């Protein structure tokens, strides 16, 4: 007896197939090579996964899902998702919810291949790394005009060494044309009078940082006449540019610190020290000469003419006067410096809050209280205000203390 089946509409059949696929296979992970990859203007991604057997399956990845890397034809990936049917075209497909490069990933392999190639060319040799200038007063910067990197570099240099001039070349650091633009920027900066170049960007995914793994950027760094510091991403991000560069900075901020090994503050302290040493030396030289003259004058006083003695004495006096004049000058400049330092210190002085109406509490003997020191009822204290000192007795040490104040 023939098996008589119900006649279905196309739609019913398509739905039956859809349910069969969704229930029977459901959520799977599948490995394969991407082909026919298209990122539609809608944001949805369409591609095919195939393997060596020649089998293929259509895949979609909706806009709400992000692959997390730059998908390209030929990449081997593992895609996870729901097998389903698309009735309007009568075909089945995999709706991917996640996709990842297979194994080490194509980019990683490309990175390793580039690293091997350039290493073989000797581009990473430590012997060819140029020394960085010890105190650059002009630094070239190639990074994005909008990222955090440029702000970090500028503010670090402004804080450490404001005298250091910056030549900034706004640079495209990711996406199409980024590699070429970074290479251009390094070449452009080579034609300026900067002494060292910082090339970099803030953190990102391996795809975001990819331009710094390209041969064109490596070549620009390799051919640069000025030392190049790479400053790409965070501590853990390592790029080809880092290997070729004369110095690798963990972050853009670190790069700015590397080009300002001596801060303006360090140098000012050093200069003060130099001024003191100069003064000490000239005084001791003078004292020594004076002693020598006096000795000669005294010892040979009986053998030499009185005239000679007078001459020597006159010389001594002259030196003393000249030295005194020089000393007055230096003391005058030193006192001007001191004024400036004093003004700066005033801001930090513990009494400066008094200007704003605060009072400073001291023990009766004038000693200050430690921050965690407790005060007890009956204790005599002194309250110091800007233009007034008052002695007081603590009546209570409650959370809201009441203080009896009597003017002194």
């Amino acid at each position: 007896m023939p098996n008589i089946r119900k006649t279905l509409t196309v739609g019913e059949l398509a739905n039956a197939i859809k349910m069969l696929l969704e229930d029977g296979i459901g959520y799977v992970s599948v490995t394969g090579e991407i082909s026919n990859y298209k990122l539609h203007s809608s944001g949805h991604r369409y591609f095919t996964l195939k393997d060596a057997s020649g089998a293929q399956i259509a895949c979609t990845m909706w806009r709400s899902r992000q692959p997390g890397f730059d998908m390209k034809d030929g990449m081997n990936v593992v895609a996870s998702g729901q097998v389903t049917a698309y009735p309007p075209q009568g075909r089945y497909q995999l709706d991917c919810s996640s996709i990842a490069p297979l194994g080490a990933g194509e980019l990683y392999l490309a990175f390793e291949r580039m690293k091997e190639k350039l290493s073989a060319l000797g581009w990473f040799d430590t012997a060819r790394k140029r020394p960085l200038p010890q105190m650059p007063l002009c630094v070239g910067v190639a990074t994005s005009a909008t990222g955090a990197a440029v702000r970090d570099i500028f503010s670090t240099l402004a804080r450490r060494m404001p005298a250091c001039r910056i030549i900034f070349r706004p640079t495209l650091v990711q996406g199409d044309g980024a590699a070429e633009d970074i290479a251009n920027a390094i070449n452009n900066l080579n034609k300026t009078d900067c002494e060292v170049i910082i090339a970099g960007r803030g953190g990102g995914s391996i795809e975001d940082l990819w331009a710094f793994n390209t041969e064109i950027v490596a070549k620009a760094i390799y051919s640069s006449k000025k030392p190049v510091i790479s400053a790409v991403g965070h501590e853990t991000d390592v790029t080809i540019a880092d290997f070729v560069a004369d110095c690798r900075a963990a972050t853009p901020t670190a790069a700015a610190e590397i080009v300002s090994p001596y801060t303006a503050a360090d140098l000012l302290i050093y200069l003060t020290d130099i001024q003191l040493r100069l003064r000490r030396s000239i005084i001791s030289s003078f004292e020594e000469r004076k002693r020598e003259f006096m000795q000669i004058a005294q010892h040979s006083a009986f053998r030499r003419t009185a005239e000679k003695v007078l001459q020597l004495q006159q010389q001594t006096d002259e030196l003393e006067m000249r030295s005194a004049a020089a000393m007055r000058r230096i003391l005058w400049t030193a006192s001007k410096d001191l004024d400036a330092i004093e003004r700066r210190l005033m801001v930090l002085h513990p009494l400066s809050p008094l200007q704003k109406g605060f009072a400073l509490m001291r023990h009766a003997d004038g000693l200050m209280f430690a921050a965690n020191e407790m005060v007890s009822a009956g204790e005599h204290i002194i309250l110091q205000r800007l233009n007034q000192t008052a002695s007081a007795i603590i009546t209570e040490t409650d959370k809201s203390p009441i203080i009896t104040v009597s003017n002194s």
Partner: protein
Amino acid sequence: MKKNIKQEISFEQQLSRLDEIVDILDAGEKPMDELLVLYEEGINIAKSCREYLEKAEQKIEQLSVKNDVSED
């Protein structure tokens, strides 16, 4: 502006000249006259370096985007 650039170029040289002067003065072997001249020079250099550092404000010069790759 020109004067500024001159100062920047010579800042490091000024510091090394300062080192030189300190060494000579420390040794104290030259005639007193020369030492006094060097002393004054040293004090003046230290002063101008100080002023340079204290008055410095960050200068940022922006380079326009040009294509240079073809020139290599």
